[in-house]
């Protein structure tokens, strides 16, 4: 009997520990974001990307500079997020719209922008590494969520990219329970066929 009790207790502790660890991880996101609190994003070289969380991109595109420091609206680049299921990836044209003139402040950013210009010159699209990949059997209509939560709601799922030098996955978008929590909280239907068809 004592053994049984021990076993049960142990499991409980273990679970609690895991739960705590997870919470810690998510809070860690916040702290890392808090690291660059000032409006001007820190100066980082492409070489630093290795230290940063998230996958390395072909071009070291800084959301913290574009969306954070310069306060460019998400929808300026992700143009279809409010009207379509897909958020839309900015076309080369969109990038060059600014970067024809903007060449970058420091050597690091200059180098990155040069990559962009070369790609544009050769009409080669840049293949960004995808960070959020929602399983194909679940349908997430972006526009409806933007409609419901407002144009700045992106952070709800994608985290505060305005503070991310390199974007990383804050939430596992394929964790169904995480979607459900939000739907329950906001008393939105959690009927299966709302997302799965």
């Amino acid at each position, binding site marked *: 009997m004592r053994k049984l009790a021990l076993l049960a207790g142990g499991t409980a502790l273990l679970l609690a520990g895991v739960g705590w660890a997870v919470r810690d991880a998510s809070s860690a996101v916040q702290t890392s974001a808090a690291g660059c609190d000032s409006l001007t994003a820190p100066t980082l070289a492409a070489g630093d990307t290795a230290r940063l969380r998230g996958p390395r991109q072909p071009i070291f595109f800084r959301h913290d500079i574009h969306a954070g420091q310069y306060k460019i609206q998400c929808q300026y680049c992700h143009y*279809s997020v409010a009207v*379509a299921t*897909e958020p839309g990836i900015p076309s*080369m044209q969109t990038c060059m719209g600014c970067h024809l003139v903007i060449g970058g402040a420091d050597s690091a950013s200059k180098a990155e922008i040069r990559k962009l210009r070369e790609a544009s010159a050769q009409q080669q699209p840049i*293949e960004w590494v*995808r960070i959020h*990949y929602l399983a*194909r059997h679940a349908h997430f209509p972006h526009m409806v969520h933007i409609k419901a939560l407002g144009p700045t709601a992106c952070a709800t799922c994608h985290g505060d990219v305005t503070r991310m030098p390199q974007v990383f996955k804050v939430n596992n978008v394929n964790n169904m329970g995480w979607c459900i929590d939000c739907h329950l909280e906001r008393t939105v239907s959690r009927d299966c*066929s709302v997302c799965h068809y």
Partner: protein
Amino acid sequence: MADDTPSNGINRRKFLTVLGVAGGGTAALSGCSTDRVQKLVPYLVQSEDQVPGIPTVYASTCTECAAGCGLHVRTREGRAIKLEGNPAHPINAGTLCARGQAGLQGLYNPGRLSGPMARGADGSWQELTWEDAIARLAERVGGGAGRLAVISGAGEGTFADLLAEWTAALGGRLVRYEPFDHEPLRAANRQVFGLDQLPSHDFARARHIVSFGADFLETWLAPVEQQRGFAAAHGYRDGEMAKHVYVGPRMSLTGMNADEWHASAPGTEAVVALAMAHVILAERSGAPSDANALRGVLAPYTPEMAAGECGLSADAIRLLAREFASARPSLAVTGGVAMQHRGAVEACAAVNILNYVAGNVGETVRFGSRLPAADGYGALDGLIATMAAGEVGVVLVHEANPLYAVPKARGLADAFAKVPFKVSTASVLDETAAACDLVLPNHHALERWDDRRIRAGVVGLMQPVMEPVMGSMPTGDVLLKTAQKIGGVMARFAAPTFEAHLKAAWAELARQRSASAPVFWMEALQRGGLYEAPPAPPGVRLAAGAERVGYTGPDLDGEGALVFLAYPTSMLFDGRGANRPWLLENPDPVTKITWQSWVELHPDTAKDLDVREGEIVRLVSPHGTLEAPAYLYAGVRTGVVAAPLGYGHTEYGQYAKGRGANALDLLDGGAGRAFLPYLSTRVRLERTRGYQKVAKTEGNPRQLGRHIAEAMSLPLARQGLDPRQAHYAETGGTPHEINTERELEAIAGFAAAQQAATKLGNYAGEHPRWGMVIDLARCTGCSSCVTACYAENNIPTVGEDEVLRGREMSWLRIERYFEGGEEPGEPLEARFVPMLCQHCGNAPCEPVCPVYAAYHTPDGLNAQVYNRCVGTRYCSNNCPYKVRYFNWHAYNKTAFPEPLHLQLNPDVTVRARGVMEKCTFCVQRIRGAQHQARLEDRPLADGDVVTACAQACPSGAIVFGDLNDPASRARAAAADHRGYHALEDLNVRPVITYLAKVQHRTEA
């Protein structure tokens, strides 16, 4: 899948840049895997009309047959994903047939050539650059090799004109050839009315329709338009419906939709028509005055005389004639491919006389709107002769496949081989292209600029709806480039591209209408072409030739005991459908056979010959032999053996090659004739001891008195009876009530209590209740909805072997039940029931699922959550309608070989192996509409959601909507007195209401 390495032929890099989001479109294939590294590939240049996640629709024109229906091409992320009817188009008005929808699989056909090819010295194919290819063509046609011949199947239009000029400029000879060209009809019109053209028929106004072997619902002239008209006339509305009688040796789909089928002896349609005309004239029921002149001509054709010829009783003919004459206006049609025997012109002429005598000409039969069609078989036959004589130096074949379409007996292959340099523009290596020296693959109609003159006042436009899938080139550009390379006289073909040439032609059209060219062009482009009212029909009078009508009977060669009937099927048409998996797997509406060719025998004939179903029989005619499994069909006249056309390709891609037997092999080549006699020979049937299980999707063709396909006679329908009452009114007897009042109350109370117990969570509050109404009086069984469902819902085609195991995945199937026809003299009757998930309120499939994968949504859908399904298949066992389909193998991996996977609808999950799937009422369309309404802050309106099947149905037999919305069409239709539920006694409460078929029953 999108992140695969580029595969041969497909211009992937370019494709992805158009795609916007790699994987966005096609990785739907990835089923349930989420961990694969994905790339996001942005557009280089953002096009205004492409927003990822929102379909863009382009108007275009269908090229799958000569009818020229208008298309709406739905594209997503730069891929065409579905073909739908253009609502503005005068011919198909937003609907589309199965063949038209399968055009998409012509675009994405795995058999498409990646670029120009030429035969090397060793006879192998070598890929060329376009420059090289065009140089070779220019050298041959321009370089004095001369004696150019061009065979073109291109319909009337700017391209056809260009080709004609181009050929003429090179001193060549152009043969415009379309396999099913209805030459006898035109000849008969020439003879009887002095008009060298095809009429257009107004089925919608006809009150009595007699078809003499004209399969106007399948392959004759413009099937979709005719089906729309037929549904309007023959579909029951407020106590009225037209009567339809079919006269012919085989009950085709058109025959199955007739109220009466008269199995006349093959080739005797003419005498029946003449006898009817005779009766009408004799009884003077209002024939035009000049028809009296025919009395003498028709005198010999008494019903008794006709009866002796055709096997119908004289009384039947008389009755038919009277009904035909008394119903005004009526309509008689003929000239189907299956009845095209050597004397077919006289049959068509006879029917012309019949229509004229009954006063239908100018009423339901109008002339002047249709354009002069192709040159007909005669011209091709002439060309074959010259080729055989070695007088042709270069032959260019465009949008035609004569080496398949002309019977071997004509010896075209040898004649063709005599031509030193042969060129084809086929985009798939068909029989003709395979015999050529140079292949210059043309763009698919959805990839190029083109137009099509369909009939007077109607010109359809085609525009590129996406980047070319393969390295093909529009033949228009090839012609122009070749001309410019040759120079000299050819220099006048100066347009840089065919697009420019086309725009110039349309500028001319604009000028004629004194409109601003750019505006005119843009409007036409958005509309899908130029749709103007047809000109007023000319007054038609009998020509001198009318006196020459008569009946000589069919002239059949061969000494066999059986008459051989070759007929085109709704799916494969002249054989061009044979490389489309959708069409091969969509069962032939009559026999329900897929992926195979077959030989039809009447059960009695089979008994005499001791042949069983599936036994491989050999048919031997003077011209060749054919082997195929036997299929016993009471709808074919005894003494007649029938086989479908369109099978037995020797090339034409992986799906078509070597599939089934080619019925043309048995036919006379028709040398020296104006048209090909499809009904030309008798055959001997030999038994081979071989056996081949017939891959048909039907289990038992009889509904055994189970109330699945209900029908009632017109008088009962007029009384407003429901199917149950009608049943008892016909069979005598009375419906006995099992439940007493108190029991019924108890049941109601129980139901109420249950309802209360189900109002938790998402189920609380008000919701729509999606429902469907299917009018069996309009459904013709054409199966267009089936292909629409495949296209919309990414349904995999499983192939012959799996169909033989009964594993086809068609969420929507057309069940075809036979009534009667068992005792001699008893009429055979066919009924069609589109069978799909009934989304039952008390669904038996739901409670048995251990994981809630099958459950009921608040808006009344019977949902299937693929990613929750573990595959116990209990739901399918417990489904009384058997409309659930299981992924026995990884069909999602095998059904969409590149580039077919580009057709997949990104809004619908592609189901992985081991899960159950079924009709969802196009839930993705429902959710899409709901989202749109949400964005626009408005409630959902009736008609916002249309299911794929309802949208495609040419008969308008399917109505979908919210049954809780008092204003919805569906709710109103469901209240019709003909409404019933299939297997109602099971109390599973389906939301699909069928409206019973209504029939003119012949009182014997």
